[in-house]
């Protein structure tokens, strides 16, 4: 059995702060005007994905199976917020923010994800959310961060992402260890939670939010002239790490998302033609005012290392 108490101590020992980084150090000049224009929407997406990842961990903390895992998720919630803050600080360093230093507007798919998390995040059963989060982390975080480090030479960016990658590796380790723990539980409990996952709002939420979110990200990566393999390799990691576990395969939600991941990486699959691509188009037509005002957690982001 995994020692979650030891992991919690490691997480506490490895904390870092935006104040540890010299945000005025040389290197910002490596961001050319051309690269800045290309990277700005990408960075805005990345900041928002970290930010909604943070919200996902906040919901997970409410359902953690043990007090240690609850505390780990509490830290992960904060760490994802820290990543969003640090990436926003990088955007400021590179002159990607407007004069007020305001957070860039989220795209419609991110806005939908925020809406679903606000409305249903806390009521999703543990198995569903605990399976979805590592897929998002593998796919979006993994692929996007790799791409960023290949494109940008600024040493401060590399220093920041050394910390972020170290945090993310612990997130993914714990995510899959928790899946092992859940998978080792009684079969009737897994079955009940699976039925709980089959609520219409969950299924619709997954199709309307998650499917276009991941395809939209692929569109953005391709638009920047990058091979989409990067995203696909990251998605494959979800299945490969999950298959190493002994009990994870007992979780039905894991198989559903693994099957979806397999469809996502196969560009010739009908999934793209008949579901994902039309959903991207359809969601882009949703008027933002229909989604209402997001909850105030979306205002907690800051690029300031010090608050007084």
């Amino acid at each position, binding site marked *: 059995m995994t020692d979650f108490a030891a992991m919690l101590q490691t997480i*506490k020992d490895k*904390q*870092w*702060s*935006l*104040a540890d980084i010299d945000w005025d150090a040389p290197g910002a000049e490596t961001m050319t005007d051309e690269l800045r224009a290309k990277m700005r929407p990408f960075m805005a997406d990345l900041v928002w994905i970290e930010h909604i990842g943070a919200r996902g961990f906040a919901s997970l*903390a*409410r*359902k*953690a199976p043990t*007090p240690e895992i*609850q*505390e780990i998720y*509490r*830290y992960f919630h*904060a*760490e994802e*917020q*820290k990543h969003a*803050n*640090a990436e926003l600080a990088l955007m400021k360093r590179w002159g990607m923010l407007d004069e007020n230093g305001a957070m860039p507007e989220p795209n419609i798919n991110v806005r939908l994800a925020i809406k679903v998390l*606000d409305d249903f995040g*806390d009521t999703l059963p543990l198995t569903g959310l605990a399976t979805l989060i590592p897929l998002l982390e593998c796919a979006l975080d993994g692929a996007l961060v790799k791409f960023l480090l290949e494109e940008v030479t600024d040493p401060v960016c590399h220093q920041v992402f050394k910390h972020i990658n170290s945090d993310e590796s612990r997130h993914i380790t714990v995510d899959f260890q928790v899946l092992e723990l859940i998978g080792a539980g009684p079969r009737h409990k897994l079955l009940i939670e699976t039925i709980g996952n089959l609520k219409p709002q969950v299924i619709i939420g997954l199709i309307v939010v998650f499917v276009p979110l991941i395809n939209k990200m692929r569109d953005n990566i391709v638009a920047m002239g990058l091979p989409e393999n990067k995203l696909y390799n990251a998605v494959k990691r979800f299945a490969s790490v999950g298959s190493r576990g002994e009990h994870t395969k007992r979780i039905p939600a894991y198989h559903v998302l693994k099957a979806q991941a397999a469809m996502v990486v196969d560009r010739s699959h009908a999934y793209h033609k008949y579901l994902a691509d039309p959903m991207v188009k359809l969601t882009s037509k949703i008027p933002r005012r229909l989604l209402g005002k997001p*909850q*105030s*957690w979306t205002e*907690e982001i*800051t690029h*300031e*290392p*010090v*608050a*007084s």
Partner: protein
Amino acid sequence: MTTAGFRGEVLRGIEWFSHDFTGQRVAVVAPGREAAQIVPEVAATARSVKVFQEEPDWVVPVRVPGGRAVSAAVARFFLRTQVKDPWIRRLLTPHARFGSRRTAVSVGYYAALRHPDCKLITWPVYAFVADGVRTAEGVEHHVDCVVLGPGSVFARDEITEGRPA
């Protein structure tokens, strides 16, 4: 982990009671049940207050007869009517599975939190540095004074590791 790295004033136990915080930026580091007692008093005189709530607890405005179930219902109603922001309300709601089931009595806690110079922070505190408190969302919060609740994890650590000179 203790407050040893912090250069400012640290108040422990009930030292905060009747203390004059005029002009000070104050951090209250405590579980919700203690913050509910401390914060209204501190906010009355401090320039600004940051409440680093270690875990949420139910708060009732007055002692409620009739057992835990009744006081939980009253606490839920009190929170719902006092705190309009759904996210802040969520941060103040105790977890159903673990943590304290204790209920604090405080009529002024939520009112104090509504004040623009009083901010609720639930990110974990991971270090005390010379000028303030570092939390896990990567921000260093500069304060002049730290009020450590007796039930805070840091107060417990000071008992085992020794209180800083």
